């Protein structure tokens, strides 16, 4: 196995989380949820520690991380931007809003800006269809958007 480059304190955090689930391999999804909550993402080294602690193959952990869209191996930006592409938002023009974000930030979906400030993602329905189209920046929800609003939203976080 590759040498693990994580700091001692990070390894301890992972070990503690695994322990709180009695190191059961059946709890791997719950473990990964908490680990991602702690670090923001699940790089390969983190998965290796989880696999070791839960006594299961790394491939299996990776299989789970790559299967579920909630888990990510890429660090998110300081302000993660999520565009709702649920049907309700789609028919009310979410794609145009997404295009405008891509253009203004000069990144594609799944990428993070060079300064690490913003990352762009799509999600399916936040359940605020009354406000469609909807965009979330961090935990804040912006509703009834048009491409015109994009500039102002980005400016809000750039100041």
């Amino acid at each position, binding site marked *: 196995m590759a040498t693990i480059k994580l700091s001692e304190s990070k390894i301890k955090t992972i070990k503690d989380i695994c322990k709180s689930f009695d190191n059961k391999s059946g709890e791997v999804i719950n473990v990964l949820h908490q680990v991602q909550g702690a670090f923001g993402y699940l790089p390969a080294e983190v998965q290796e520690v989880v696999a070791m602690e839960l006594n299961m193959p790394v491939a299996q952990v990776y*299989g789970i991380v790559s299967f579920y869209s909630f888990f990510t191996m890429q660090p998110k930006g300081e302000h993660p931007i999520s565009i709702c592409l649920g*049907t309700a938002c789609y*028919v009310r023009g979410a794609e145009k809003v997404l295009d405008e974000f891509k253009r203004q930030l000069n990144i594609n979906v799944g990428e993070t800006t060079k300064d690490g400030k913003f990352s762009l993602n799509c999600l399916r*329905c936040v359940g605020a*269809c*009354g406000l469609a189209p909807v965009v979330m920046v961090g935990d804040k*929800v912006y509703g009834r958007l048009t491409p015109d609003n994009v500039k102002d939203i980005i400016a809000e976080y750039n100041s």
Partner: protein
Amino acid sequence: MAKYKMHVLVCGGTGCKASQSAQIVENLKAVLTENGLQDEVQVITTGCFGFCEKGPIVKMMPDNTFYTQVKPEDARTIVEEHIIKGRKVTNLLYTDPENNEHVSDSKHMGFYKKQIRIALRNCGFIDPENIDESISRGGYEALGKCLSEMKPEDVIQEIKLSGLRGRGGGGFPTGLKWEIASKNHADQKYVVCNADEGDPGAFMDRSIMEGDPHSIIEAMAICGYAIGATKGLVYIRAEYPLAIDRLQIAIKQAREYGLLGQDIMGSGFDFDIELRYGAGAFVCGEETALIHSMEGKRGEPTFKPPFPAVSGYLGKPTNVNNVETFANIPVIITKGADWFNKIGTEKSKGTKVFALAGQINNVGLIEVPMGITLREVIYEIGGGIKDGKEFKAVQTGGPSGGCLTKKHLDTPIDYDNLIAAGSMMGSGGMVVMDETSCMVSIAKFYLEFTCEESCGKCTPCRIGNKRLCEMLTKISKGNGTMEDLYELRNLAAVIKDTALCGLGQTSPNPVLSTLDNFWDEYVEHVVDKKCRAGVCKSLMSYEIDQTKCVGCTACARNCPVGAIKGEKKMPHTIDPAVCIKCGACIERCKFGAISIK
């Protein structure tokens, strides 16, 4: 609730919360305290009222005044005018679009008139974080009745008689499902609540869990009693943090009251509930995939039989029901199967919750009796199409469903009629589209979703859907041929017949139903290379009418790529080679000089 003279109910659903409803609560409380009314008037944050279009919503009790689109700064007016002076704040009342009159009681609004609220009975009436409020509205009465007066087989019989069918999409009779699970003997059985609402554009289950979590807990315990299970699991999406919070609070409170845990109500029946988190995989709505995910594996479905009722979670008999199905159970027990089965149509009993969204005036969450027509839903409850445009289609059943059109407007909505019309009930998403929606693009949108969400286990779904999606992309780019259209139908049929699970078997539905209902539009894309809705970018070009353009430069200034050229006060032109067809110019032009060709 007795000691307060008045209650102010503020919607704390996701939509209203996003429009600062929490701030409204803060402000209301502050102004009440300022006026020394904090012990007279109680402010309660409730679950979703359903009328999301007009949110945030504030309801005054006991006089039932229904305020819409309330802003945080309106809190003072509400307290000073309504509560202190007893005068209604007319500018916050709902205005009936028909006659421009103010309506203060929600019962008289078109949006609510035709609704019957069973699954949503408590949403918007109680504080979901307070078990006493749930109990005051009959919560846990049904569980008490089951444990003290009914044998497990009586409970199953009652559910069977009610005619309740699974609300998650398939429509399998719930009573029968319970009976099968009850007949399989094992040392441990499980009750699972499927709260992995992955259908884009649907938020029914979320609203029930956020607005009335105790009804789910109660129903799961009843199910446990009926089938002989002592453990319940809720499989819930991690993307629903508020619903998770409220369920956790509710479970804790139920344990404290002895309504979960050992020896419930002194009956000797033990039952407890744990939460399991989903991690974003649409296929996990399929019960075998869901069970694998709960076991900590990739959420891949397996072939049925064996059904979960025989071998489910950890190989034990498991009964999986959807949130809305569970929400119906307590009412059926307290009011009786005979009351329930009078509502609805012959083969579909009760009500259905729909998330009404898209190009419609009243977006929101509705609960209507089975057998209501689309026309009633769209024009009476939904208030018609936005901006007076023409109705084109309504999509039901999400990525597994299909599009219904004008000719289906008077078809009574129930499980069987929707399937006959080439769609399905699904979990209850209902997205309304007007003439600006391109049906080829809609089919492509759903196929892209399926391709992303296909677990990859079986070939028809993994590769077949990818090919369908490629063909649709080709058509929307203007490179399609008539042959592609026939091939599209052919391949769709093969996938339907051969895919392993419900996801794959239904994934071609959006393609098939749009082909059936909008054949002309497909042909237009292929033969005339035209997209009548103006959505498919490759098939259109923007042009400036030289006689209408006054040279105001608004378009040129707003063009993100500098494709528009022209002197001030002289007609402008668009360079088609540079134009990215974003439509920014057309929105800016005040003279209607720009058109899509």
